[in-house]
Every structure is written in C-alpha cells, then in structure tokens.
C-alpha cells in the first residue's frame, strides 16, 4: 500500500535552507520506504489563508487541501527555521489551526534550520513538546542544520548521517504500522456519543 509522506516547510526564501533540509529528509525516507508518495506543503503561500482561518475558524482553498493532506498522512516531516529561539510564527500557526486529532498517532520527524548551531536544542524544547501535545509520535532523532552544515564545515558528512538516521527511524516506524484513516472531530464526537439515552444518563 502506497504510504503518504507529507512534508511541511516553513522556509520563507527561495531557495530556502529549510526546504533544502526538508527535501533531503523526504528523499531519504522515500528511498527507504519504496512504495510511498511525497506531498510538500510550503507554508509561505498559505500565510494569508492561515491568518484568515485564525479569524474565521475555517480553512479555504489550498489551505483546506493542505489540512486534509495532514489528516491523511502516514508520516509527517515538519521543518521550520528558528525565529527568536523557537519555531517561526507561521509554522506554529499552521499547527494551531489544524483540527484537534489531525495528527493523532502520526509518525513525525522534526527538523529545524538556523544561522548558528547554538539554537540546536530548539528541536527538544520547542518542536518535540508541540508534537507531543498534538499526540503525534515523534521519532527519537531530530535534525538540526546550521549554516556551517551546508558549507565546508559540513564536509565530514555529519548532517547527511543525521538525515539518514532520522529518516531510517521514520521509515521503520511507518513500515511497522497499518495505514489508518483518522476520523475528524465530527466523526469522533459522533462515535463517542452513542445513543442519546447515554447522554441523558449523564
């Protein structure tokens, strides 16, 4: 069965090192899984729609499609630039507006980019707690890439080995699981409701 890998990239520039890291992780995961397809969600073009959803409570157009893709994902690779010692506001907004339960039990690989390696713990103090809250299953290895990892400083291949290790963990987790469709809020409420007599009994 073809697995669906959804990549979320909150990079703002083009080319973007955030997108570059996301692509490395996706390519490696795809190679390991074999029968899989990758969908990339760039958040920049969705920025206005995200602000609208904050205000109206519902998603439209491409954003609605992106949120549906998240609900169908067998695995998520989430990559953000570091802004002010955390994930970017745009990245957080996307996960703020996702309907509760969208990522229930979904394998997630977290990754981040920054200008300096001093921010590398952002994976542990910001991204991992966010996805734990969303009840996703975060793989043990997160991938952080600072500016030096892309140039001569990364020549020892540390970033590549880390990408391989994280992608390996994600692929193994996905391969060990059946594809299941996650019910949305309405269906979960409905399933919990049972018969009205149950509600009446309190």
């Amino acid at each position: 069965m073809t697995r669906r890998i959804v990549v979320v990239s909150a990079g703002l520039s083009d080319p973007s090192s955030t997108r570059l890291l996301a692509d490395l992780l996706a390519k490696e995961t795809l190679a390991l899984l074999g029968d899989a397809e990758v969908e990339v969600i760039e958040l920049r073009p969705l920025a206005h729609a995200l602000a609208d959803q904050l205000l109206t409570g519902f998603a439209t157009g491409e954003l609605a499609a992106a949120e549906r893709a998240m609900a169908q994902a067998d695995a998520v690779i989430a990559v953000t630039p570091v802004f002010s010692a955390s994930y970017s506001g745009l990245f957080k907004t996307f996960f703020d507006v996702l309907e509760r339960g969208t990522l229930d039990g979904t394998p997630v690989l977290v990754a981040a980019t920054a200008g300096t390696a001093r921010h590398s713990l952002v994976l542990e103090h910001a991204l991992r707690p966010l996805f734990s809250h969303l009840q996703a299953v975060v793989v043990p290895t997160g991938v952080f890439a600072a500016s030096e990892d892309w140039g001569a400083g990364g020549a020892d291949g540390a970033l590549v080995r880390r990408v391989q290790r994280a992608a390996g963990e994600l692929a193994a987790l996905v391969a060990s699981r059946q594809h299941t469709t996650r019910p949305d809020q309405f269906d979960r409420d409905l399933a919990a409701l049972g018969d009205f007599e149950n509600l009446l009994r309190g």
Partner: protein
Amino acid sequence: MEYGIFTVGDVTTDPTTGRTPTEHERIKATVAIAVKAEEIGLDVFATGEHHNPPFAAPANPPVLLAHLAAKTDRIKLSTSTTLITTNDAVRIAEDYAYLQHLADGRMDLMLGRGNTGPVYPWFGKDIRDGIALAVENYALLHRLWREEDVDWEGRFRTPLQGFTSTPRPLDGTPPFVWHGSIRSPEIAEQAAYYGDGFFSNHIFWPAEHTARMVALYRARFEHYGHGRAEDAIVGLGGQVYLAKNSQDAIAQFRPYFDVAPVYGHGPSLEEYMASTPLSVGSPDQVVEKTLGFREYAGDYRRQLFLVDHSGLPLDTVLHQLDMLGDVVAELRKHDAPALEGSLA
C-alpha cells in the same frame, strides 16, 4: 416554508460614519425592525439572548417578544437563541409559557448553548459542561411543559418535588422547540430524539458542516420514529445585503464587512461569499443562492436571514427589508409543495 429574520442585537459603530447607536436606540431599532418584518410579509422574527456588551439583545427574550406580541398581529416570535445552558429550565418553562399565552400561541423558541466562555461562570456554570447542561436542562424543560407534577433530580439544579410550572402551555400544547448548533452532533441527536426542529446557523461556516449536521439529524429523526428523514424539521440561517444591482450591493456592504465583529480584518468579501452562505448582491442573485441551500440541506422548513448587524443603520435595515420582502415573495414560488403550511 417559513421565512423570517434573526438578530443578535449587536451595538456596533457604523464604520461609514463613526457613529455608535446608544443602547436605547438599538433596542428601539430592534422593535422597529420586527414590526417592519411583519409589514413586509415575513413569517418569523427571532431575537438573540445576550448578557454582555456589545449587545443590546434581551437577557430574557420574552421581555422583548411580549412587547412585540402587543405591537404585531401575525408574525411568529422566536429566539436565536435561548441559552439552555445558563438559564434555569424552570424559568424558561414559566416565562415562555407566559409569552405563549400573551402571543396567543404566536411563538416558538430555539435553544442554543452559547459560545461565550465568560458568560457561564456569571451564572454559576462551566462551559466545559455545555453539552451536559443542554441535555439535562432540556430534559427537565420538556417534562415541565408536559407534566403537571414533576419530581426531578439532576446534576445542575436543586431537586424538585411535586413541582408544577405555571402557567401551563396554551391549550395544553408545549411551545415548539428548535435546537441550534453549528457542529456538535450531540445537539442534532438531541433534536432528533425529541422529534423537535434542528436549526443550523449556517452563516459563518462553509456549507459542508451544515450538510453533515442536517444529514445526521434527518437520519436520527427517522431512527427515533418521528417520521421520514425527508420530513424532519430543518431550519437554516442566511445573511443578505441587497441592492438593485450587484456592484452597488458589494460597494455598499464592503465597509461593514471589512470591519465586522465576526469576520472583519480577515478574508475579502468575495472570498467569504464564495465559502459561506453570505449573499450580497441583486435580488436575483440572493434568490439563486438561497435556493441553492436545499441542494445540501434538502427541503427545509424555516429560513431566517440576518440583516441588521455590523453597524448598519436603522434606515438602511428598513430599506433592506423592503427588498427582502420581494426576495421572499420570489422564494415562495419555489417552495416544495409537501412542506407548505405552518409548523406545529
């Protein structure tokens, strides 16, 4: 099929003039709008219930509706909504039965939970109990209008022993009840269980939410033995702004839309119209969009429009109602024959 208007009684600055009506002006405007609704041939006027600024809707809708009963002859008076969570079911039973007598039966009511978190603790309640409050309070209200001697014990109010709610409903017929909810299946289930009406506010969300809730309500209405799913009693909200031609309607409404309390500062008017039932345009366009509601909700029984919000001044609203009267006359030509006649 019934057509009418519903209001939330918001006191909002008119963005085109910077003028904010006083509470007194807003309350008197609401009365004028209701009287006008009867004049143009609408079937229903419904008022919200509010306990906080910026609203000048009644905290207890029967206060307004009893006044309107005296000023009108034909229009049905209703609510949008009566808070079933924070009101005592005993007071709802008493006040609305009294209204029913004053209005000679020309009333019904729509129950809602209220989504304003701070309101609940003002009345000793907790918003996290919203569904449980709606279920328990209505179970009591339902009995109070049908039984003269009620013993009651529940989670949320003091027990009753041998209690009789007075006055008894007019001619022994309890007021008709609608249950309103945007996306809580429990409330569609509740409406179906009792064979009551189900109303989808409809106006602030894409239609797919309404479609799912209405489909659930219809299926469960049949399940509980109240009739066929297609005969279930569905009501929908709508929101219109009319002008002779669509460009004028858009140009006139845009300043209100752009800063409106609910959707202001967000999507454009055009985007919002494309994804919700908001209908701003010529009478023909509004008729066409409104007729489209039944494609996903089926044939339904009550259509309420919001026309008096976001700072629109009274004279504009009254002019809107003149045009709405013509729109409704056109809509009536398309009513499904099987659903003709009044409710309950």
